């Protein structure tokens, strides 16, 4: 595990979230450490995906959702949840990889380049270069370099998910959010994604939601256990899995519950 100065990339303070009338997140306080992998674990319905989606304001897309509290992004001290802060600006700084691979029905190149096009990048040479860097970063370049114009749908499931990761990387995000990225993949593809995450953390901060406790133990530096919308315990992964402080956490980890 890498050591060095631990700095906070984002601090969540007293976050409450409502799906219209339903109180989905209750008083979450949690740091997100820079260039580390933080995992959110917990049984179904505990609010981990809801919490993840607060980071890139995905809830704004649907009517009736309401945030209370703040998520402060450093170093510029921006509150991501502030109504004055444009969600599009937030999404340009924080990218997301979804549960089921969802490439656009376009070519591999166009998929990765889309984030750059949205930012107004037109020069072909710049696009070519950044697409290659992103595909290398997602460990996909060697497999697709000869067929960048091929349809993304022709790739296998694991390759499509790596394409989605490349697409998210192309725009140099500060935080990368993963929403159960391997739950739809076979074990070999899962292993390659986990290896990728381990490589990526040297470049950016990662927050990953996972159903799979073993994956959290393998991949993350910090783990947060959530239950029914509350943050039960947050600590270094080793501590959570070996000597959790909270009995509820211990019950979940050991499989006595959930």
């Amino acid at each position, binding site marked *: 595990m890498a050591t060095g100065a631990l700095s906070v990339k984002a601090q969540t303070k007293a976050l409450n979230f409502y799906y219209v009338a339903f109180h989905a997140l209750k008083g979450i306080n949690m740091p997100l450490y820079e260039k580390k992998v933080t995992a959110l674990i917990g049984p179904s319905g505990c609010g981990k995906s809801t919490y993840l989606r607060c980071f*890139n304001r*995905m809830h704004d*897309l649907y*009517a009736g959702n309401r945030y209370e509290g703040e998520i402060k992004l450093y170093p510029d001290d921006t509150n991501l949840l502030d109504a004055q802060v444009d969600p*599009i*600006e937030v*999404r*340009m700084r924080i*990218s*997301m990889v*979804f549960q*089921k691979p*969802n*490439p*656009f*029905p*376009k070519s591999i190149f166009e998929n990765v380049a*889309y*984030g750059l*096009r*949205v*930012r107004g990048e037109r020069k072909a040479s710049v696009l070519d270069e950044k697409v290659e860097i992103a595909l290398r970063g997602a460990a996909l370049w060697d497999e697709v370099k000869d067929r960048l114009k091929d*349809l993304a*749908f022709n790739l296998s499931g694991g390759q499509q998910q790596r394409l*989605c990761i490349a*697409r*998210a990387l192309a*725009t140099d995000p500060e935080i990368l959010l993963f929403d159960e990225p391997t739950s739809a993949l076979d074990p070999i593809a899962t292993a390659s994604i986990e290896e990728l995450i381990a490589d990526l953390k040297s470049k950016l901060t990662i927050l990953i939601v996972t159903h799979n406790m073993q994956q959290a133990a393998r991949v993350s530096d910090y783990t947060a256990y959530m239950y029914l919308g509350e943050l039960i315990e947050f600590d270094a992964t080793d501590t959570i899995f070996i000597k959790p402080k909270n009995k509820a956490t211990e019950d979940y980890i050991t499989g006595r519950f959930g």
Partner: protein
Amino acid sequence: MDRNAVQEMRELIARHKRWDLIFACVGLLCLSVAALTFVALVVDMAIDGAPRLSWDFFTNFPSRHPAQAGILSAWVGTTLVMLVTAAAAIPVGVAGAVYLEEYAPNNWFTAIIEINITNLAGVPSIVYGLLALGLFVYTFGLGQSILSAGLTLGLLILPVVIVATREAIRSIPSVIREAAYALGATKWQSTWDHVLPYSLPGILTGVIIGMARAIGETAPIITIGALTFIAFLPPAPVTAQFPFLSLEWLMAPFTVMPIQMFNWTSRPEAAFHQNAAAAGLVLLLMTLSMNALAIYIRYRLRKRIKW
């Protein structure tokens, strides 16, 4: 399970399979009736009219002598009116559908718009003709022209285009939109770069259905005042002098294929009836080729999409 129970289960399955077979036969029968009716009509018309088809038939103007009568002004008129119809209905219909699906908030105002569109689909076409007469021909002063006819038919097929576009947009999985938004796209970027291109096959289907209906509409065109005997063509869109493009043809008097057919059918001479059958065949072929073109485009676009 004992022997009796297994036997009973087998009889039950056999009974159900018989119903399966009956349903399949009934379905096939109904389909055949519809298909055979269509084939019978086409064959009947072809037998009557095909001998009349010739180069002269396509390039002659109508005439008092059936042997010299042709459909030149009619098919040119139909083609030009269809162009204006498409130009009117497609942008307005697609934009309206995009607004309703992507932008409109869920309130009473949106509900009123949706009710109005549904009602538009049920209005009889002669009423469209009256509306067009009052609005386009007189109030807007467009006269009894191709422009009026095109706008009227555009209104007529607007609900079809809107509904088909909405269905196509709805079939796009929300994860695709979320992926676009997650990359920092605005609603317009997501609509223009993703939603519209992926709904193109569905939009084309709606346009085909609409145009196929519009090409045969006679009542509204008569009401506007399409003439039944025209011995000249509208002015050409391309002119010899600057600015080389002319829109005079939009305001010209005209006729269309259904009206020409109707005119010939109402005459007593049998030779004119043969002309009408030949014109009907041509009209059918025009419709089928429009359909074929759109189906081909739809097929090419559909290949890229897999959901």
